[in-house]
């Protein structure tokens, strides 16, 4: 019942440079080191810190530590600077060595670093510009205040064939479900309906980023959005009942 089996990719990776230049027409100094992006960009007269992944990165222990390290450095050295997480990941690296070393700790450190940034007044925006899968997206873009996605992005816990194998539900039935139900298809519009993606970013990405910065709020409001949008009707209601029942 776990995590991702997805290692294959569909089509070519989105060119991160073109995404970054559309996000930051006022300029940026983002650099690539392996599958990791770090740097800063200017948007709406404001400087943002950027950390991201490229090439459908598998988040192993090293890159997860580097991402957390960069976020903590920004919090330490640039109090209040907004953070942008630019995410393209196939999920956590599925290797025995990573598990031996406690990869859950490394991936969780990204989430915790984001929380401490939020607590100290940093707005945190996530953008899934290509793939967002399982542990890789949980720890990054889904830990942000606001998560956006490009129209062609894919977000999922596992691909349909693998899901069919593990759940023992025929793949054809899952495929049929994913046409009717937002619960099964990786289309980011489904995640909009279910509240986890705030909006699809199209056209002027710099404007989308500014809008996201304006909407950033510390409290997790995804269940409320899901109810408003009709994508998940029970999450917010049941949480409220448990929270408030005498």
């Amino acid at each position, binding site marked *: 019942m776990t995590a991702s089996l997805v290692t294959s990719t569909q089509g070519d990776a989105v060119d991160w440079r073109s995404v970054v230049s559309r996000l930051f027409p006022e300029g940026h100094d983002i650099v690539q080191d392996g599958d990791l992006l770090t740097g800063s960009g200017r948007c709406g007269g404001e400087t943002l810190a950027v950390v991201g992944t490229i090439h459908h990165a598998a988040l192993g222990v090293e890159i997860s530590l580097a991402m957390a390290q960069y976020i903590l450095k920004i919090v330490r050295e640039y109090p209040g600077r907004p953070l942008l997480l630019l995410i393209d990941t196939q999920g956590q690296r599925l290797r025995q060595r990573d*598990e031996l070393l406690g990869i859950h*700790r490394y991936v969780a*450190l990204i989430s915790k670093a984001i929380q401490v940034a939020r607590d100290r007044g940093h707005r945190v925006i996530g953008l899934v510009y290509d793939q967002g899968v399982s542990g890789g997206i949980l720890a990054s873009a889904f*830990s942000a205040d606001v998560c956006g996605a490009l129209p062609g992005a894919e977000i999922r816990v596992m691909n349909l064939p693998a899901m069919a194998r593990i759940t023992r539900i025929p793949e054809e039935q899952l495929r049929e479900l994913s046409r009717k139900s937002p*619960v099964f298809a990786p289309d980011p519009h489904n995640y909009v309906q279910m509240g986890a993606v705030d909006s699809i970013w199209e056209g002027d990405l710099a404007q989308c980023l500014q809008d996201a910065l304006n909407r950033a709020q510390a409290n997790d409001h995804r269940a409320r959005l899901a109810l408003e949008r009709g994508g998940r009707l029970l*999450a917010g209601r049941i949480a409220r009942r*448990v929270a408030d029942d005498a």
Partner: protein
Amino acid sequence: MRHRSFYEATARQRIVEILDAHSFAELVGPEQRTVSPHMQALQLPVAFDDGVVVGRGTLHTKPVLIAAQEGGFVGGAVGEVHGAKIVGLLERARRERPAAALLLIDSGGVRLHEANAGLIAVSEIIRAILAARSDGVTIIAAIGGASGCFGGMGIAAACCSAVVMSEEGRLALSGPEVIETAHGVEEFDSRDRALVWRTMGGKHRYLLEDCDVLVDGDMEGFRAGIAAAMEAPQSLTLEALEREQAMLARRLQIFSSSRDGRDVWRTLGWPNPETVPLVPTDVFLAQAAALRAA
């Protein structure tokens, strides 16, 4: 009564025996029939508590909120309703400020039958844990059930204030079967129980400091271990995360060439690492303490 095995007990038995006698009051219990609409849509069996029991009680007379996942229902995996109950409990903790919120985790992670909704539910649990910790709530994860603690719940456990495990407990991100499916049996033989245990079992996690309190696998062991963890609250601060980051960076340097739990234990100074699985918990803890001091 309290010598019953935690591993073999149900979620409800665990709650009753870990909390003070007769102190537990369930919130949104099975009589409310909060079943999963997604499981129903797939015409799969449902549970009236959706595989998680939540409520309040006391432990050593201190007020606590508690959630226990039922590993016997879809491997304790997290769906929309199941996740919402845990999120609601953690929201309640932010308001009530109990001595601690206890998460008895027994879960394979995201419930694949709920796919996207399950993934989001796990994300909401992680965010709720972190928000409650930011508000100063102590959150203890206890791991020792047959379904272990995998997938997104592994991330969630690492976001808690402390992790309590038994030897039989397993804590990881990707389960052995998932790794074997992705990269073959040469990468990870999921049927090799000793290998699984050396990679993600309670003793290994304790030696790497991913587990704060290692306990005997009976109810009294967990009760005492959770109470001990509640006495040592950890706050979520920049300084604490910088220390954790330094510790995790050191770990990568020291164990970069380790391929097996035995390599890690040897590096930590265990003269006969092959005996680690065999020694009783109390002897193991005494030896581990001596090696840490040395």
